[in-house]
């Protein structure tokens, strides 16, 4: 295998592994803020126990998010030197803003969030929780801005020719608010809320089924279910808006999402299917003219297809893009169905006793995780063959001096490390969940309360 494919596999692998954790942190962060606010307002001890329990889960996801996140910052330079030179001037300010506004905020307050129970007043602890959560939201802002600029570049001009070409910024706000950044940020935020909320629903349902920690589990359900319900419906809307942006600014990607080849004809919308790249046909279950209706409210309206682009300007893996996209959509629908059913049961008062629903909620933690991954794979593979859309090809963006065996070395090294990390993460998550929230009367907790300003 050559440097290009190895570097692409390595980046996809490391960024996908990283992306297990930050959405959980953002989602759990929101729930922690809500639960701690409820504790401050009501002084009900279940809210306090719940907050502390979620902070322990948060610590684990956050720690792994930080540890795996630095890798990407290095990889731009190690593997993609030409890309780094090309985009440095444009990305620079976004990255600097991320470091100084987001990471410092998160990591600064994190210590107080995790270890400050006995050391600061409850209000200050709450401020720290808000600080960490806002910081994690901010870091999503800047990284999505940077990625969106790669999808829909704006606010720049190109100086130099050939390998010396560089994008230079001309308008900071046009770069920040490039055509896709707001829509994609909403999509990422909502996906993160779903990741956190469904983890919480899964844990709560599991406790309820086993009859353990019931008062805390009910509070957990109460705080997570509204988030899950609102975010899953909002995600439907956000996804539609994001698709319209893709249609307008990245027509080749849109065509790949639905496997639409005909250069200028009406486009179907598939519920599921299989793209044969040789015959340029899709087998599957489709709503005829569905995509045309969605975009132009007219089943006959033409949509630009893949054949409108030169073969070297089309995504290489049309079927993969199609499958990832449809997997994401299908999972999104399942999340809506589950959260709506649960909200309905709650309203009817039957949620706590509906064992079937609770049993379905337990494994549902995986759905938003898979949907988030699939969505990113569709977005990034759909952008190919460009690393910066219509400006810089992925194959031109590599480091000049890096050899295949070096990339193979780092890929093997990080595969081993990440397998161990994932095993440890799952093991410790399970252990923390089995252990459950501390109940009052727990000897360890009482011992610390004697010296703690918190109690």
């Amino acid at each position: 295998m050559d440097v290009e494919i190895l570097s692409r596999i390595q980046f996809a692998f490391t960024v996908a592994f990283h992306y297990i954790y930050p959405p959980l942190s953002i989602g759990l962060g929101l729930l922690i803020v809500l639960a701690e606010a409820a504790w401050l307002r009501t002084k009900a001890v279940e809210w306090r126990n719940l907050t502390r329990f979620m902070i322990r889960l948060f610590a684990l996801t956050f720690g792994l998010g930080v540890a795996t996140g630095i890798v990407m910052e290095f990889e731009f330079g190690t593997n993609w030197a030409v890309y780094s030179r090309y985009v440095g001037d444009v990305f620079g300010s976004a990255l600097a803003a991320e470091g100084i506004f987001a990471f410092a905020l998160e990591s600064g307050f994190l210590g107080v969030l995790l270890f400050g129970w006995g050391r600061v007043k409850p209000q200050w602890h709450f401020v720290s929780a808000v600080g960490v959560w806002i910081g994690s939201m901010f870091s999503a802002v800047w990284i999505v801005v940077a990625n969106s600029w790669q999808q829909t570049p704006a606010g720049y001009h190109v100086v130099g020719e050939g390998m010396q070409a560089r994008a230079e910024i001309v308008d900071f706000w046009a770069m920040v608010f490039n055509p896709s950044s707001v829509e994609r940020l909403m999509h990422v935020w909502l996906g993160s809320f779903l990741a956190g909320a469904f983890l919480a629903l899964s844990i709560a349902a599991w406790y309820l089924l086993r009859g353990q920690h019931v008062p805390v589990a009910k509070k957990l359900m109460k705080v997570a279910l509204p988030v899950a319900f609102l975010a899953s419906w909002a995600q439907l809307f956000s996804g539609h808006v994001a698709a319209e942006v893709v249609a307008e600014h990245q027509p080749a990607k849109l065509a790949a999402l639905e496997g639409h080849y005909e250069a200028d004809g009406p486009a179907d919308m598939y519920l599921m299917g299989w793209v044969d790249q040789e015959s340029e046909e899709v087998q599957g279950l489709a709503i005829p003219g569905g995509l045309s209706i969605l975009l132009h409210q007219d089943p006959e309206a033409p949509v630009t297809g893949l054949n409108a682009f030169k073969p070297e300007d089309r995504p290489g893996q049309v079927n993969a893009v199609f499958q990832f996209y449809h997997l994401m959509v299908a999972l999104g629908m399942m999340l809506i169905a589950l959260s709506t059913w649960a909200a309905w049961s709650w309203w009817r008062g039957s949620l706590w006793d509906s064992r079937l629903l609770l049993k379905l909620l337990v494994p549902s933690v995986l759905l938003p995780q898979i949907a988030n991954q699939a969505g990113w794979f569709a977005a990034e593979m759909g952008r190919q063959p460009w690393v910066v859309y219509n400006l810089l090809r992925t194959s031109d963006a590599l480091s000049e001096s890096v050899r295949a065996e070096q990339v193979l070395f780092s890929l093997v090294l990080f595969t081993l490390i990440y397998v161990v990390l994932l095993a440890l993460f799952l093991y410790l998550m399970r252990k923390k969940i089995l252990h459950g929230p501390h109940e009052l009367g727990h000897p360890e907790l009482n011992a610390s309360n004697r010296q703690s300003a918190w109690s």
Partner: protein
Amino acid sequence: MSLELLWFLVIGFAVTAYGILDGFDLGAGLLHPFFRKEQSRRIALNAVGPVWDGNEVWLVITGGALFAGFPEAYATAFSAFYVPFFLLLAALIGRAISIEFRSKEPMAWWRSFWDWSYFASSLVISLLLGVALGNLMVGLPIDSQGIYRGNGMVDMLGWFPLSVGLAVASLYAMHGSLYLLLKTEDKLFERVRALNWRALYFFYGAMALATLMLFAHHVEVVVRLWSRPAFLGFAVLAFGLSLAVPWMVGRRRYGLAFLVSALMIASLLALVFAQQFPMLIPSTLDPDGGMTLAEAASSDRTLKLLLTITAIGTPLVVLYFAFVYRVFRGPVKLDDSSY
């Protein structure tokens, strides 16, 4: 003052903050095996527990600031340091999970495994940072296009960079022991004091070795330094401060000793970066080649943006750090949220 020089100073500040702050975390990791009792190890670990993560952010900020302001240098240096940087990343992850996972199980084998990996990863990080610094000081084989033409890791393990690695590790052990003096009490405190002396002697030895290697293998760097006597001031300052550390410790002024040690790290880093100015990366292929600040820099518009963002953000960052260090000031008290 030109914009790129201003941004160079900002990066210098971030590197220095990283060196001083993560320096004491890494130092605590290097001293970790020298504490025998479980209680002592927990106290030493919890001394850095609430702050190490925030300290590591300075490395992220440094990388981001380099990418942003000097993308040419970022691209060249990071692709040149391919293998050592992936080892560094692996070690950074190793340290993070050692700190995070150690306390999660009570079994002795579990804890001693993470104790060991905490020490090993801290050592690898310190050595690699030193090796990278040593290579940057003497320069990299880069051509006139700023493209790296060397053989990677095998080229980088010269005697001088290795001795710088040793110097960084021993400096961090010494610096970390000064931090732990502020965070421990009673018998553990006495133990840390004994370790402080040992680390200090080790540091003097490693610095002497690094100086010797510089003269033996890279006389051109010495000549470069000599031609700019003003920068030699940093060397004299660092030397003086290194003598002031044991003096302060002897007078039981531990806070001051830590501060002096921090200033010494700052002046050593100033010496490194000043000696190659205005080169950002000197070239070993062509003494007049190399990559200058101006060649590596982003456009003026970007540099202005970066400086504006920094001006707005820095007071906030200082505020968070002041808040955290204030909350966790004084000797470590273990409670149920400790590691």
